């Protein structure tokens, strides 16, 4: 699907994108943003699912199972804490307006 050179292009463009997206973030959002980017790499879940789905020995299944549990924890936990943090900023903003 994705051959070597195309993969390198994707890698390069994604790296620039990540750099640009973060470089304009105010300091107050650094922690939520670290948390948010932590959530985004939770996409490892789809990879872990594919790996477990293809497992054909007990060892593979055990490792794959652990992988999916960990990945789901990364995605869900990352989302929950990021949303909780960011909601506070909205709250604080509204109070200021009132």
């Amino acid at each position, binding site marked *: 699907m994705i051959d070597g050179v195309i993969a390198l292009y994707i890698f390069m463009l994604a*790296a620039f994108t990540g750099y640009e997206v973060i470089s304009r973030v105010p300091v107050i959002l650094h*922690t939520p943003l670290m948390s*948010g980017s932590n959530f985004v790499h939770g996409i490892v879940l*789809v*990879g*872990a699912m594919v790996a477990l789905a293809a497992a054909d020995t007990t060892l593979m299944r055990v490792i794959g199972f652990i992988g999916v549990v960990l990945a789901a924890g990364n995605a869900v936990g990352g989302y929950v*804490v990021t*949303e909780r943090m960011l909601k506070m900023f909205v709250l604080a903003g509204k109070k200021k307006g009132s």
Partner: protein
Amino acid sequence: MLSASMIQTLTQLSYLIAAALFILGLKRMSSPVTAVSGVRWAGVGMLLATVVTLAFMRAASLNFVLVIAAIAIGSVLAWVSGKRVAMTDMPQMIALYNGMGGGAAAAIAAVELYSGNEHNLVHLTMAAIGGFIGAVSFSGSLIAFAKLQGLITKSVRFGGQKFVNLAILLITLGFGFMVVSGTGAESGLPVVSLFFVFALILGVAMTLPIGGADMPVVISLYNALTGLAVGFEGFVLDNAAMIIAGTVVGAAGTLLTQLMAKAMNRSLANVLFSNFGETSAAGSGSAAGTQKPIEASDAGVMMAYAHKLIIVPGYGLAVAQAQHKVWELAQLLIDRSVTVRFAIHPVAGRMPGHMNVLLAEAGVPYDLIADLDEINAEFETADVALIIGANDVVNPDARSNKSSPIYGMPILNADKAKNVVVIKRGQGQGFSGIDNALFGLDQTRMLYGDAQSAVTQLIQAVKAAG
């Protein structure tokens, strides 16, 4: 029934949309106004990718059940812990979830490498690199979590540690080479297992000697590393969403790590390889003068009749959960037409922005919160600087004492204020174990006690001031 190629196309399309939503989501998270919608956009992307993957998964029924069960277990555990954790403990939760992501990337690599079905050298190398980084990030993040959670209180340091760590690194790389080149299979050694075991040990060994004050930088670094690991495994699995999301996080996390290290005026190498805090140079003699205590009632009156008060919060505020009380105090003073500002050092607390999150939780409006560059000129015009559980970030030694380990770090110039009140639990040194010259200055008064109770007493004192 959809044909295989259509399924392939639909899956790839959903990943493309997910990747776009991640980038847009991160972009929206860069402004307080759109931040919540940002994480929700990213969440929609994640949900889409997961559901499509699940729907089109061709797997034996046993594996299918295992996938569902694993998702359920991981999600419920993370959901409950994420909802319950106190805002003050957020940094270690991020470390924990990040470690889980690294572990998942390592698990994918392990499945690929153990299966032995993969013979493409490029893919094997990618899997091994991703597995290595993921495993280091996994065990390193768990140690960071344990340290911040207080499960590990000592920083393990010994002579020649760097060389031991270097040896572990070289051994890990050696096994990695054997795994990729296929020479391991002939030697009869369980090289794949040894490779992962040593990678895990390396993560532990790298993180153990790092002092708690440097943890924000370390967590951020591991966040970037997990992103990279996910990107590498994305190459192995031909998964564009993983490549893009992983690389974006890897790049963004690296930048964030640099920003943090810069705020502490230290290079990343310095954080990782110097044994900071070990300097028992505590007796540098710079802490001239003695610490002069003050009663809460006197401090309260001083603040009640001030024109301008600058509050400098630190980790002590987080530990004592005093953010709501501090805002109550600030509101009382504002009602008395005292000008109140909050000064946030970039590395106050355990993560950049940690204090901002706590103050936002208490409902402090953004416009009262200023960062280092904005506020530093204002200390000269402030009647009172109230330091709550902060230490190194207001230590004037960083400006003037070349022998101080934190020399050169930008600090908040609290010592320029006419009066300084420091709320501190005891007379001991701060987290980094460095004496603070500020505490001995003529205009400084120490208010000993837990931040929560001390601020409560201040509130009463201000109310009593009439």
